[in-house]
């Protein structure tokens, strides 16, 4: 379960304070699939980065499965990210010098759990996202949609409890977008992974069961869609 309590993120631009997030509170249940929407600059990506432990909020708390993670050290947050969270960036964010297969199993190497062959698992995950025949390809040899699916496979290597996806289809064509979103839906339904994704496309609401709408850093809607 993800609990967000009175979360604020304030940036200082000289003497001016910008409240990217302003007293946001909500709860997301395990296995949910939630879409965060809002206009450009509404704070949706900022919220996802706080949830994904890539940034620290200025105020408020984030509680993951009963643990207040906002007070953890950078090292502990890094470990938590590695062990329990998956993050999919808007711009694919693959490592150019690694093949699709290597990109996927790299976090697994760092995790290094006994009894798990992360190379084999990476191959299976690439099969799962429909890229079983592209495992030896480098990112530059893959289309945008394929790269994003590699990024999703990478986010799954540690069997995460939650996947955060920051506008995963922003740079993709319609067909690729559909494939990526269907992959996320499939993971949510079949593997019971909680998926929290950011989108500016109103159509993407159809993939989610919950909706958070932000405006000027404030949460204006928290709905169960279905």
């Amino acid at each position: 379960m993800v609990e967000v309590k009175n979360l604020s993120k304030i940036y200082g631009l000289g003497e001016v304070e910008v409240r990217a997030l302003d007293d946001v509170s909500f709860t997301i249940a395990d296995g949910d699939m939630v879409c965060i929407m809002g206009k450009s600059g509404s704070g949706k990506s900022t919220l996802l980065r706080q949830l994904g432990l890539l940034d620290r909020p200025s105020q408020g708390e984030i509680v993951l499965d009963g643990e207040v993670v906002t007070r953890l050290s950078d090292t502990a947050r890094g470990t938590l990210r590695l062990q329990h969270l998956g993050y999919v960036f808007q711009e694919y964010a693959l490592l150019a010098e690694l093949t699709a297969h290597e990109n996927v199993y790299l976090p697994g190497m760092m995790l290094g759990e006994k009894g798990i062959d992360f190379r084999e698992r990476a191959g299976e995950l690439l099969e799962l996202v429909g890229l079983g025949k592209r495992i030896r390809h480098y990112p530059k040899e893959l289309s945008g949609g394929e790269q994003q699916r590699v990024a999703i496979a990478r986010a799954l290597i540690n069997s995460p409890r939650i996947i955060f996806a920051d506008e995963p289809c922003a740079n993709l064509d319609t067909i690729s977008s559909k494939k990526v979103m269907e992959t996320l839906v499939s993971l949510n339904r079949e593997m019971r992974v909680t998926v929290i994704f950011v989108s500016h496309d109103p159509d993407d609401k159809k993939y989610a069961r919950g909706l958070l709408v932000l405006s000027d850093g404030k949460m204006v809607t928290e709905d169960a869609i279905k």
Partner: protein
Amino acid sequence: MKSLKVAVFLALKSIIRGNIGIIVLTVFMLVLVTMNLLFVPALIRGATESMNTILIQTYSGDIIIEPAGDDTVINHVDDLLDSIESIDGVVAASARNDINAYFEFEDKRIGRVVTGIDPVRDGEVFEISRSLIEGSYLDSRDRGEILLGIQIAGADQEDIELYSSSLRHVHAGDKVVVTYSTGFEKQYTVKGIFDTGFIQTDSQAFVTQLEFNSVMPNMNNKATSIRVKLEDGADPERVIQRIASLRDGLDFQTWEQTAGLVQSMTESFTLINQILNVVNYLVAGITVFIVTYVDVINRRRQIGIQRAIGIKSQSIAISYLIRAVFYAIVGLIIGILVFKYVIIPVEARHPFEFPFGPAYLLTQPSYTARMAFILLVVSLAAAFIPVWRVMRIKILDAIWG
């Protein structure tokens, strides 16, 4: 262990799949630095070795024995020479008698020292006979012949150091007049002229002991010094102790103690070498620093992504340090191999010519090992600074700037 495994993985992938041009250029720079770090000390060592060899073989021998205290001569020298030559580790010993004299040829008159020697014994201690450029070496029974160094004879070689203060035009077969400090004057035929390349040796003149005794009858069976040649590896101090036990009133010097000029040159060379080494290590460090810095800046986003997906900062930092060590090790290996199998053989065919003769590049394994270690440490330190700075940047700043 997991961190190290990931670091090695990242380093290997980036070396294998990184920009080959940058890797080759960096390694090339470190090869040049390595060769530079090897070259100057090897040249100094080679030059010093050549100087020492020529000093021992033509001027001092391994041990110089002189009368101690107020005595000016060593008495009963024939018996002493036999006793010295019977000591283990001694190859030969030669008695020498020096006397000041003036040399005249045509309108030129110069003051030098004439040394009386037994040509056979002296030839066993020194290798002057191998450096003859004109004429022949002395025979034990020669009386009216003299052997001149090139710096006395001149021999029309205007490029020698002391040509202007030499007799300038003397050649083998010419006759020179020698006036000893006792006032005795005699005309000698120049039997040979030698050029060892060592200026102190080449400023000497030799006559046979037989001739010297006729000039200085009171010096029979006496010597102003004895020069001793030792076997390779013989301990000079042990031999000196043995000789000292034979007779009192002797003063001993090893060849190193007479090599003041050589030592001061060596010390100056060593100081120059140390300055050059510091510059070379700085060049190596700056090269690795710039390459790592540019690399880290270019990969800032990638580093941010690596951290975002859970790769520990220490793994990323170690991967860069491994790359720096890789550059340094490859540079060292290629540099050392090129130096050993290309530079040294080529220089051996075309050695650097110094006034004292050719100098060959001589490497010292202990120096090479120390140099390699320092270069590795410098490379590591130089790579660490930019990596450490980037690791302190927040993940979001690294990814999105």
